[in-house]
């Protein structure tokens, strides 16, 4: 038996990855990899397929040129093959546009040629992000690959193939059981699937006429690789290189024997796919891992029956076993909560926060299409082509549905339009594509380091600037469309209920009728609001060549883009199955106070608010929402409470007015508690020691409030956070400034400030300060991942206003200063929420 091993480590760091994380991986893994390969390529039978993700390569190109030099010297050995892929490591199925496949492949091809000098036609295969695919992904990527002469060779987890050999009475496939409730006695069927032992060969498939080859990946060979340590105290399994080699040879032998019995004499292939960081970074022991891998390589080298191979080389020498269908992928069955269920399809039921990113992307896709239609219209005019009516529409639709849509528009722009429009269009497409990158969509959240929604927040910071530029372009082009109105009421997040979207030059605000609250609020710094040149300059500088690090938060920041909160989840079943809702801002609760205890009344934080007729023109964007509820506090004591909220955008601020009126309950001690929430978090991507605090400026009166601050956090020497609670008496605050520090990987360190001014004639006895979200996915993920703090979820301030004469009302002015000077001494009282100076604070754990 002769067998082959395709070894394929995957090098990846997402766009906007934290500086410290990248540097650690560089030292522990990427450099040791090079040293390992320098030795390994001297072995006769050695060959390795490497996949560098686009974001990884952009970072290396920007920051580690010496790495590229060393790597390119290694390429001269001829024993390193390169796997192609998509430029931004995107979950491309989130995109509405088929031309993104070609765009991503071409960008990657361009990047690879520039950095390593390999053309698409020389790729060993194509990496599919997370090996996640449905039929459309395979079809479209194959179509796009053919346009750049890239080989349509993929590797997919073996679970992607049909492996169920039997259906049996009582199984899911038993239709009698399904429809009538009894077991079908003759449902025992052997289906003519390829036996599992034979899934060690290249297989061919075609979808919609697009033919491709797939090599199955067996996860056990991934997990056994470098399994030198125990995961838990009960785990005693340690795989030695000799064991690993044994398993591989055994699997190849069985595959060969099975295929022989099938009547073929073809040499099997075992595919080893694993994240490159497993070597060195996960174990923190690069030397031990190096020895392990080198021993394994040597074992293979000494075995005349087994050799390493490239994907395409294998296919050339052995061909494919047969045509066999690929199903929709299930690459991470065990992690499905993080993929399919969390909305890998985009705007689907699942992760509310992710949904907001995708909804904003859908907005951009629509605006981009308006622009493209406008360009196509003017193109025909310039060419002087008058197509008869049906043809006109057919041509336009054909172009917009083409895989080469972007290329076509881009060429037209270059040919016939001013360079600035071309640049704007290309920037728009570049930024939009960045937003699909996989990492923030599922696993790579870093709650500990103050970057929970970090990657998406950074992407949105650029995206909102692009939207402003695009809107201005469309207005200039006199494109008239409801999507361009400053205030719109529509089902923005496709949840079956309306939202209100308000936009001006500085702000984007989405109000959700559920809870009558802010589900998304993005702001620009006053210095660039309306200044499209400045915005272009920032985007071009940072993303024209995709810089590794940036300071975009000086200019652009989503203030409300909150995490889901386990405390306001909707539980479908007692044993599990729930929908977690985002905390959002300016939900309001009404309480009744009895014996110094507060009891929540009604459904004012979650109820469905009525959206009253909004006002929306270029100068004025305003909307009212109201909710009314009859409440029976005790038998025969009915009362009715009306709550009205008004939101309007002003220059440099979002103004909110809240009025609560109680009919019939004047004698009760009622309390109104609006929730002032922001998802803004401090971030320190260099040292992982974020800092944020609250500065209080008091009102003129002498009233005092009890201020309860929960979960203050401090970094300990071992870089773990410790949490404390704190209670203090403060003068009634008129303004609360939330200062959060951003220390970015490019060496910049600056402070952003978010101010909440609160005016009310009602008494304010208590003020609660707490993290915006304390737990998300509680009991669904590991406790340490579930627990959030100020550094990872942002802030919630809850003023408790006492009703007077049956009424409570307040005006809240929310303003911001990005990249602003900060002096702790400028405040009457300053409380560090995260990693500050603790003098004078009595912190209770």
């Amino acid at each position, binding site marked *: 038996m002769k067998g082959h091993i395709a070894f394929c480590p995957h090098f990846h760091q997402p766009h906007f990855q934290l500086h410290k994380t990248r540097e650690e991986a560089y030292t522990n893994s990427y450099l040791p990899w090079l040293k390992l390969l320098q030795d390994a390529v001297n072995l006769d039978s050695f060959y390795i397929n490497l996949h560098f993700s686009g974001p990884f390569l952009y970072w290396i190109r920007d920051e580690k040129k010496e790495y590229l030099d060393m790597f390119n010297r290694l390429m001269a050995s001829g024993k390193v093959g390169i796997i192609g892929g998509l430029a931004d490591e995107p979950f491309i199925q989130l995109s509405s546009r088929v031309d993104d496949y070609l765009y991503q492949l071409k960008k990657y091809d361009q990047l690879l040629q520039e950095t390593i000098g390999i053309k698409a036609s020389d790729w060993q295969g194509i990496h599919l992000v997370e090996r996640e695919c449905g039929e459309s992904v395979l079809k479209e990527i194959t179509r796009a690959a053919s346009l750049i002469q890239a080989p349509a060779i993929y590797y997919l987890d073996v679970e992607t193939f049909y492996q169920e*050999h*039997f259906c*049996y*009475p*009582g*199984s899911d496939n038993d239709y009698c059981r399904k429809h009538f409730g009894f077991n079908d006695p003759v449902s*025992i069927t*052997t289906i003519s699937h390829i036996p599992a032992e034979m899934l060690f060969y290249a297989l061919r498939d075609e979808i919609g006429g697009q033919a491709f080859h797939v090599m199955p990946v067996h996860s056990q060979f991934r997990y056994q690789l470098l399994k030198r340590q125990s995961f838990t105290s009960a785990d*005693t399994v340690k795989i*030695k290189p*000799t*064991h690993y*080699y*044994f*398993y591989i040879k*055994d699997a190849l032998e069985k595959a060969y024997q099975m295929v022989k019995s099938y009547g073929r004499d073809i040499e099997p292939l075992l595919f080893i796919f694993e994240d490159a960081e497993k070597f060195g970074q996960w174990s923190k022991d690069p030397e031990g891992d190096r020895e392990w891998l080198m021993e394994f390589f040597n074992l293979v080298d000494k075995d005349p029956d087994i050799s390493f191979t490239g994907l395409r080389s294998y296919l050339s020498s052995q061909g494919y076993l047969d045509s066999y269908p690929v199903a929709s992928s299930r690459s991470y069955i065990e992690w499905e909560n993080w993929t399919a269920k969390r909305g890998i399809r985009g705007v689907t039921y699942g992760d509310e926060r992710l949904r907001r990113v995708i909804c904003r992307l859908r907005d951009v896709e629509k605006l981009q299409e308006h622009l493209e239609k406008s360009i196509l219209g003017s193109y025909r005019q310039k060419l002087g082509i008058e197509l008869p009516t049906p043809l006109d529409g057919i041509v336009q639709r054909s172009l917009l549905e083409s895989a080469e849509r972007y290329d076509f528009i881009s060429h037209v722009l270059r040919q016939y339009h001013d360079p600035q429009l071309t640049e704007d269009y290309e920037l728009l497409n570049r930024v939009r594509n960045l937003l699909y990158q996989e990492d923030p969509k599922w696993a790579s959240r870093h709650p500990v380091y103050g970057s929970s929604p970090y990657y998406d927040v950074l992407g949105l910071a650029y995206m909102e600037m692009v939207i402003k530029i695009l809107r201005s372009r469309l207005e200039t082009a006199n494109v008239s469309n409801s999507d361009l109105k400053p205030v719109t009421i529509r089902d923005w997040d496709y949840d079956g209920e309306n939202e209100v979207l308000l936009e001006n030059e500085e702000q984007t605000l989405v109000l959700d009728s559920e809870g009558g609250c802010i589900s998304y609020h993005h702001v620009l710094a006053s210095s660039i609001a309306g200044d499209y040149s400045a915005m272009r300059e920032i985007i071009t500088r940072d993303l024209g060549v995709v810089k590794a690090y940036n300071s975009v938060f000086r200019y652009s920041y989503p203030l409300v883009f909150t995490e889901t909160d386990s405390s306001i989840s909707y539980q479908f079943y007692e044993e599990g199955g729930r929908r977690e809702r985002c905390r959002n801002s300016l939900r309001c609760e009404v309480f009744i106070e009895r014996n110094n205890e507060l009891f929540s009344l009604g459904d004012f934080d979650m109820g469905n608010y009525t959206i009253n007729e909004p006002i929306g023109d270029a100068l004025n964007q305003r909307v009212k929402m109201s909710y009314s509820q009859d409440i029976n506090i005790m038998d025969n004591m009915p009362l009715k409470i009306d709550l009205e909220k008004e939101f309007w955008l002003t220059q440099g601020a979002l103004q909110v007015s809240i009025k609560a009126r109680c009919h019939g309950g004047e004698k009760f001690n009622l309390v109104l508690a609006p929730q002032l929430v922001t998802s803004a978090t401090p971030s320190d991507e260099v040292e992982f020691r974020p800092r944020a605090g609250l500065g209080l400026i008091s009102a003129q009166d002498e009233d005092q409030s009890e201020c309860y601050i929960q979960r203050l956090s401090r970094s300990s020497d071992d870089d773990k956070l410790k949490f404390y609670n704190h209670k203090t008496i403060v003068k009634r605050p008129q303004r609360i400034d939330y200062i959060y520090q951003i220390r970015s990987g490019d060496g910049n360190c600056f402070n952003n400030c978010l101010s909440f001014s609160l005016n009310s004639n009602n008494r304010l006895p208590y003020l609660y300060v707490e993290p915006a979200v304390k737990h998300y996915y509680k009991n669904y993920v590991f406790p340490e991942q579930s627990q959030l703090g100020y550094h990872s979820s942002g802030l919630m301030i809850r003023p408790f206003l006492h009703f007077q004469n049956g009424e409570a009302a307040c005006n809240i002015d929310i303003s911001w200063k990005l990249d602003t000077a900060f002096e702790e001494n400028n405040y009457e009282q300053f409380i560090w929420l995260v990693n500050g100076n603790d003098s004078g604070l009595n912190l209770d754990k």
Partner: protein
Amino acid sequence: MNSKILLVLHSHIPYVKRQGRWPFGEVWLFEAMAETYIPLIQAWIHLKDAGINNVLSFSFSPTLLEQLSSTYIHKEFIAYLQEREALALEDERYYMSRGEKDIARIAAFYRRYYRDIRRDFIVDFNKDIVRAIKRAQDEGGVEVIATAATHAYLPLLDTEGLKNQVLWGKRVYEHYFDREPRGFWLPECGYFHGIEDILIDNGFKYFYVDSHAIEGGKPIEVYSEGGEETEVEIPTFARTGLSTYRPYRIKDKEITVYGRNSMVSHQVWSADYGYPGDPDYREFHKHDPRSGLKYWKVTDRRIFDGKQIYNPDQAILRAKQHAVHFVKSLEENSQKARKLGFSTPSIVGCYDTELFGHWWWEGVSWLEEVIKEIDLSKELELALPYEVGPAKHEAQVFESSWGMGGKHYVWDNAETTWMWEIINKAGKEYETLKIFADGSDIHRMAVCQALKELMLIQSSDWLFMVSNNLTRDYAMKRFFEHYTKLLRISNCLRNNKIDEEFVKWLDQIQYEDDFFNQVSSGGLI
């Protein structure tokens, strides 16, 4: 000082190489290798790697050592494991097709199990289990002791046979372990007055006997439980006032004897109270009719029908619980001993190695947990005999064994009387053949082979199988075959029929019974 826990595992499989495969024969050896020896050594290595004190005494019978070292066995064992893996895979698919997912899951477990045993055998042990044991002894933590050449029941053997069994037991040991043995395992704990002299002559320092041999009283071991259906009278040995909590020097002799602790043995071995009979453990006797694999749990040891599907996770949990219970019992035992005035009591547990894993599927896990628990105990510590220190007290030991009745009944009863007659005759026959050893090479080879056949006849296994009516036919066949071979060699030598046919036949039986070859080249006679 902590109490010293001395665990002694005695390993033996009859000589079955090339003596039939299944259902009787080599499969016994393969099962023991796959289910006991390899998992046990791996567990021992894991414990050592984890820094846990895991000292154990082992004995390996010379016939077992010879078979474990045979390249023929290595090859056949790998084939056996591959067969089992393939059978498990077939079962897995079969039971999936029937919708019996629970059994299919266990089949998948067996498939992985046999694959990993093959991995360990080939990769970790380089097919040489004996070398792995030698390495464990050389690195410290394991002491291997010698035993009789073919596991003969020594108390009833004639003197020459006895000497051969001890001498060749020692020589085989030295061949494989490259050192002189200190301890000797008396097969079946069979002791009689005088055997210590032969042991002393061969340089042995200590041996083990059952508890009643030292303490007196009624033997209580599982083999000793004669019920109404058995005719054996269980004698009560006179109380001596001695205790197994300490080793003794045999009166006026320079050799130490360790008595096994009755409680320690009882809790594991007892048919009524022993751990292996727990309802959650895997049932040994019920096999799948297709593959022979075992998918059921004990459920109720008194009945054979209605067994429930085995749950490996539950069984492992049970083994952990039993380990905790066992070590607690040891601690109580230790405290009891201290109250009796033993400042550093020794507690000796002797078991057949094959109990763990083969007979009691979860036994290896149990033993591993016991060792971990003892390591955590403030009262106990595992020790080897030399760590206990020299015996300060003398004792006279009863003639005894660990078999039913506490003496020789299991191997010497109405069913086996005729066998002893043959054994004695064969011994005498062999003695008369020694003179031919000075002849030609063929003569010498023939005498050597005669000794091998004699020693195989003396093996206690055939007596045991006949007595217990277990695989009696196979035992009698083997017994007669070896005797017939001895007789034919004798006839040919006496009648000088050393012709081509004899040489061919001799060559054939040398191939069939080809153990102790290294010994013959070093001068067997």
